[in-house]
């Protein structure tokens, strides 16, 4: 079972709807026991980083997520959820979960911010099983003002260009982060979600 973490401010329904279409068993929860029992976690995301971290902490979910993921439980962070996996965010100058070393930075001020719309993702390893049936440079739906900058470049699995090139997919063992809303990215998004769930199933 996959636990979609409910921390008060995000687009839970769209993530659950996308998983339901794949016939995956899900629970939307903010209960610590449920999160601990789940085989894998999804940290969705719409909203501001500071509010997101505050809500996680208030519900005492931050430590559970960190512990479980460090022990090997798979987690998918989507949009803000991906950013919260990092060490620190410039949005509100806050510490995040610290599961991935690196910072969250603001997109280049020369561009319109937020970036809203469909943009291409260049895959660093298009042969990976995670990208089965997904052509390189497929379009995905982005809505964000900040992006992740991991220290370790080897975990960057997808790159998108908006003013600058930045990491739009990261994969580090049991941790996957996507900056775009794969639950809202039509066919490409559904395929990627399915591949990620398969990958998680193999890890469990």
């Amino acid at each position, binding site marked *: 079972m996959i636990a979609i973490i409910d921390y008060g401010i995000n687009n839970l*329904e769209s993530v659950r709807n996308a998983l339901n279409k794949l016939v995956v068993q899900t629970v939307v929860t903010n209960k610590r026991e449920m999160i601990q029992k789940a085989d894998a976690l999804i940290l969705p995301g*719409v*909203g501001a980083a500071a509010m997101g971290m505050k809500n996680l902490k208030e519900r005492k979910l931050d430590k559970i997520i960190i512990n479980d993921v460090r022990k090997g439980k798979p987690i998918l962070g989507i949009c803000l959820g991906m950013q919260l996996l990092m060490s620190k965010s410039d949005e509100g100058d806050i510490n995040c979960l610290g599961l991935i070393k690196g910072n969250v930075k603001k997109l280049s001020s020369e561009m319109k*911010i937020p970036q809203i719309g*469909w943009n291409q993702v260049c895959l660093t390893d298009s042969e990976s099983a995670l990208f089965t049936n997904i052509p390189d440079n497929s379009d995905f739906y982005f809505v964000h*003002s900040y992006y992740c900058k991991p220290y370790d470049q080897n975990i960057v699995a997808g790159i998108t260009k908006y003013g600058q090139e930045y990491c739009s997919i990261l994969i580090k063992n049991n941790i996957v982060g996507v900056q775009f809303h794969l639950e809202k990215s039509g066919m490409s998004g559904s395929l990627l979600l399915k591949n990620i769930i398969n990958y998680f199933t193999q890890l469990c």
Partner: protein
Amino acid sequence: MLTKRIIPCLDMTEGKVVKGIQFVDFRDAGDPIVLAKKYDEQGADELVFLDITATVDNRDILLDVVQKTAKEVTIPFTVGGGIRKKEDMQKVLRAGADKVGVNTGGFNRPTLISECAQSFGSQCVVLSLDAKRVKNQWNVIINGGRTDTGLSAIKWAQQAVALGAGEILLTSIDTDGMKQGFNIELTKEVTNVVNVPVIASGGAGKLQDFKDIFVEGNADAALAASLFHFGECTIQQVKEYLNDNNISVRL
């Protein structure tokens, strides 16, 4: 490269999609969920739902339609109409909307925009701005086209962005439903003064109108309703036309 977006708009009242001309003379255009699904399959980049009488009827937005739509579509959608407080926005987001349009409620109480941006992020706060030419300027019109505020639409756009609006859905009442092309002049003025994406709305009547609003109006997205509802052209046709004219779209 970020692509230009084509967005069908579903104006709704009492659970049905309707389409009017210059905000009046509405005709029935069908079931919202059936239409939403059809547009998703046709390659729409997003959808916009506007409950156009929510403010004047003083009622809450149609949350069940939002929920059902969220189950059916695989692309993002914005919902607007009758948003007066932060909790209204939260309800709509929780029902599955990705972004929420704020119009009259934000004009009457601008701090609504900053409160929502702080809680949910600027990226899901869309300023829905209806403008009409009055003498030598564009005025902000609220209450679903009924009330002229007398204030400059250009200034309000700037203020709303400063307050935290992350996108502007700019509807020209003058061109709405006329099918004589988007309002390029108005769109250009707004895109010149704000640094957030602008969705141009009102007036699409033929393929070239889309090209013109992107090239001359600098719009980031173009919204249309009757053209798609009544089958005059498909989203795919619009996108192929734009692609042939070297405008980047998702095909």
